[in-house]
């Protein structure tokens, strides 16, 4: 009798485990991302396991499947931590309004065109500014020392980039 009871408990445990799986999968799943932006879909493809991705892509025309796979491979080849870092940056960027995204793109291009010595100074200042809370950052940007140290173009660049890109805490530690 006692043995049958144990057997019954084991069977019940098995069914509870099996029944709990779909629920856990639902609970563990990310909330459905915002639609309307192909970038969201691309990032979702990037996060998928190879099997998931194949299943998602299988309905596309073979040539397009191959082209998309080839481009995603570029991302897959990065180390996991770097993949995570890029996804987080990209997600933050994608949440900006389109005009802000364009602004960031333009300012990064402008940053890349700075002379090497200025680029180093501006890069270091950006890194410090993006760590600051909003009010403190604004105070720093408005301070006379800051304005004396950077040209108006550089000041604008630092203001635009530091207010539109995430603080470094969002980035996971590098391996």
């Amino acid at each position: 009798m006692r043995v049958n009871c144990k057997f019954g408990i084991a069977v019940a445990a098995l069914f509870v485990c099996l029944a709990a799986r779909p629920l856990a999968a639902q609970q563990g799943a990310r909330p459905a991302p915002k639609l309307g932006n192909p970038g969201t879909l691309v990032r979702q493809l990037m996060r998928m396991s190879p099997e998931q991705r194949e299943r998602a892509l299988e309905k596309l025309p073979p040539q397009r499947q191959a082209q998309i796979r080839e481009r995603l491979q570029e991302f897959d080849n990065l180390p996991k931590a770097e993949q995570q870092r890029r996804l987080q940056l990209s997600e933050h960027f994608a949440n900006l309004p389109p005009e802000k995204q364009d602004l960031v793109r333009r300012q990064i291009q402008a940053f890349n065109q700075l002379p090497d010595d200025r680029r180093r100074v501006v890069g270091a200042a950006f890194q410090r500014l993006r760590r600051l809370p909003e009010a403190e950052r604004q105070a720093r940007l408005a301070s006379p020392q800051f304005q004396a140290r950077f040209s108006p173009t550089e000041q604008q660049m630092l203001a635009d980039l530091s207010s539109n890109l995430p603080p470094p805490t969002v980035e996971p530690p590098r391996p």
Partner: protein
Amino acid sequence: MICPMENGDHAELLALTAQQLEEPQVVRLQEHLGACSRCREFVARQQAVWQALDAWEAPAITSDFDRRLFRRIEQRPSWRDRYWAFQHWVPIAAAACLIVVAGWVSSRPARVAPLPQTQAAQLQSLQPEQVEHVLDDMQMLSDFTKAARSDAGEL
């Protein structure tokens, strides 16, 4: 004579210590032992083993040994008893198997949920250039933040 130790054939030396050789072989080996320290040492060790075995005396059995032995033989469970005992363990073994299976099943990654219908439809129109565009943005942002971290001496 070829040295048995050098030849790797110890059988003759073992037979000598077990006193299983004929007289001419014993004489021939004894002559060799007089000249070969390795064989002499081997034979001495083997003789020590034999002496130890000879010195060992098995403890005497108790007077009721046979009676107890036969009683135990009689008490051996019958096939029927074994069958019932087996039946007793079957549910426990089955329960253990089920628990293992349940653990395995629950630890496997959950089956991939298909994309929601709206996203599946959106995927149909996804172009390789759009993937490239996202990758380009990622690269740009990554390069810029890395450069800034490097400039700040954090890399």
